[in-house]
């Protein structure tokens, strides 16, 4: 006999964890649909941060006193939480950064400067966030590199034939996002990693939009570098992670110098550096925030990442269905594999007007270029509206959003 169990996410329970969801905006209940920009924070994470400052705030890795010891233990335990969360091999492959942006800049300036020569090529995609474009442009200017761009098709999916054809003997690195922040396209990163490796290139994956929405397995993908941020995964702002294969990280020179990242410092005999990952963690990190980020990942584990992903797919389907009734609405990014992100434009209604007016009705969506100007310009627009979903959103909220959208479009047309 098989027992049928309804394994769906208990959204009522999930919502109870988020104090901010109780607030009102302009006298209306908040409907927060800007999760691709930043997700809201569960009380467990807020309490972790609060507990850190109330009980064991201390600098790590040096003091011999109890507080320093407890803070160091909690900080290093977080490395293990992150390692397990993304299935890295070792803890020392986890470098804490200020976020995805800093992680990418670290790879560009450390690995890039040590390994690339004039004429070498870096392959990025049309789907990238500015944070995975500009660090490579800076490096290209410094080292005289060439940047090649993998094109997208009319649905906002990467053209994989063009990707294959983009490699040549000078291609050294592929830098792509796992999930597009602007369109929600899920890229076939495992396949892309295989192709990159077949051509002797490394692959860096910007996982900022993937980590909160699907199970990430850096070993399964065979990613050389994988970056993500805490604040898009129910954690605090200002912290993130760079995963790098141990052998790569070990061979890389330090990027920023300072305390924590050294072994010995001498004016005469020179300075020697700490082992990885500390070699890349100069200065006092955001200790409490890193620990709170670990709690956020545990929270995701407690709910279940696959349940969250499935729930968001349901929300996406419901939103697509409901939005279809709005006359003149066009969704940008209709790739077959998509996360819970809908980017759209409405004929006769500027995105800025929609964003301002819908806020009056308590609905928070993002409007603008989503830090992806090359992608939007490719699709012939300057700005879109974007609704993006998280574990705590409900079909009822989507109904409120679509109704509000209908009303504000009617106002401006």
């Amino acid at each position, binding site marked *: 006999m098989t027992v049928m169990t309804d394994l769906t996410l208990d959204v009522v329970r999930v919502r109870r964890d988020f104090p901010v969801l109780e607030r009102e905006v*302009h006298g209306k209940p908040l409907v927060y649909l800007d999760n691709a920009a930043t997700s809201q924070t569960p009380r467990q994470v807020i309490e972790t941060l609060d507990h850190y400052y109330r009980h064991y705030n201390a600098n790590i890795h040096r003091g011999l006193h109890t507080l320093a010891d407890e803070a160091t233990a909690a900080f290093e335990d977080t490395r293990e939480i992150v390692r397990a969360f993304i299935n890295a091999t070792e803890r020392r492959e986890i470098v804490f950064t200020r976020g995805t942006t800093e992680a990418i800049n670290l790879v560009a300036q450390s690995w890039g400067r040590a390994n690339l020569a004039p004429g070498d090529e870096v392959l990025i995609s049309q789907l990238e966030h500015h944070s995975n474009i500009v660090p490579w442009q800076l490096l290209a200017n410094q080292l005289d590199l060439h940047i090649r761009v993998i094109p997208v098709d009319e649905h906002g999916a990467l053209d994989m034939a063009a990707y294959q054809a983009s490699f040549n003997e000078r291609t050294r690195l592929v830098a792509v996002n796992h999930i597009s922040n602007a369109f929600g396209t899920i890229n076939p990163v495992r396949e892309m990693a295989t192709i990159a490796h077949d051509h002797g290139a490394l692959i860096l994956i910007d996982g900022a939009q993937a980590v909160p929405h699907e199970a990430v397995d850096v070993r399964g993908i065979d990613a050389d570098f994988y970056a993500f941020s805490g604040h898009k995964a129910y954690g605090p702002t200002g912290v993130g992670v760079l995963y790098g294969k141990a052998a790569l990280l070990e061979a890389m020179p330090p990027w920023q110098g300072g305390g924590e990242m050294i072994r010995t410092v001498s004016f005469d005999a020179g300075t020697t550096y700490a082992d990885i990952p500390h070699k890349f963690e100069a200065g006092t990190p955001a200790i409490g925030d890193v620990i709170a980020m670990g709690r956020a990942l545990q929270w995701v584990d407690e709910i279940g990442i696959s349940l969250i992903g499935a729930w968001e797919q349901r929300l996406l389907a419901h939103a697509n269905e409901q939005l279809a009734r709005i006359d003149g609405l066009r969704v940008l990014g209709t790739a077959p594999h998509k996360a819970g992100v809908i980017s759209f434009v409405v004929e006769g*209604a*500027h*995105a*800025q*007007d929609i964003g*301002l*007016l819908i806020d*009056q*009705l308590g609905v928070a969506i993002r*409007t*603008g270029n989503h830090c992806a100007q090359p992608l939007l310009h490719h699709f012939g627009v*300057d*700005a879109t509206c974007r609704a993006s979903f998280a574990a705590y959103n409900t079909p009822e909220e989507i109904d409120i959003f679509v109704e509000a959208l209908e009303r504000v479009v009617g*106002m*401006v047309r």
Partner: protein
Amino acid sequence: MSAQQAQAELIEEFSLFDNWMDRYQYIIDMGKQLPAFPEELKSAETKIHGCQSNVWIHHEREGETLHFLATSDAAIVSGLIAVLMRIYNDRAPAEIIATPPSFLEDLGLDKHLSPTRANGLHAMLKRIFTLAEQEKVTG
């Protein structure tokens, strides 16, 4: 009617609405009444930067006064242009300079349309005042 009187009149009109959705609708409807902006006047010189939407302001000296022509591809910004035009259009540069935009506060617009929302209102005001200063000197 002076620029000050135009401001007072706007404040009175806005006080008729008790909620912001109605005020926005009024602003949007005012924007729909803006005179057409000739395509050939859209240039780098007339374009205002710092807005999420596109805004152009063209101006001409007409005797003692400044005549503005402005447009935007967004509805609320077009409405804000209409508000600005009622106060500042066809006035002497000295009168423009002597009329600080107190309506922003009086209408609650500064609170609802803060500069962080990149709506371009402050950029448009700055352009109008800069042009008035220039014309005051050259005129």
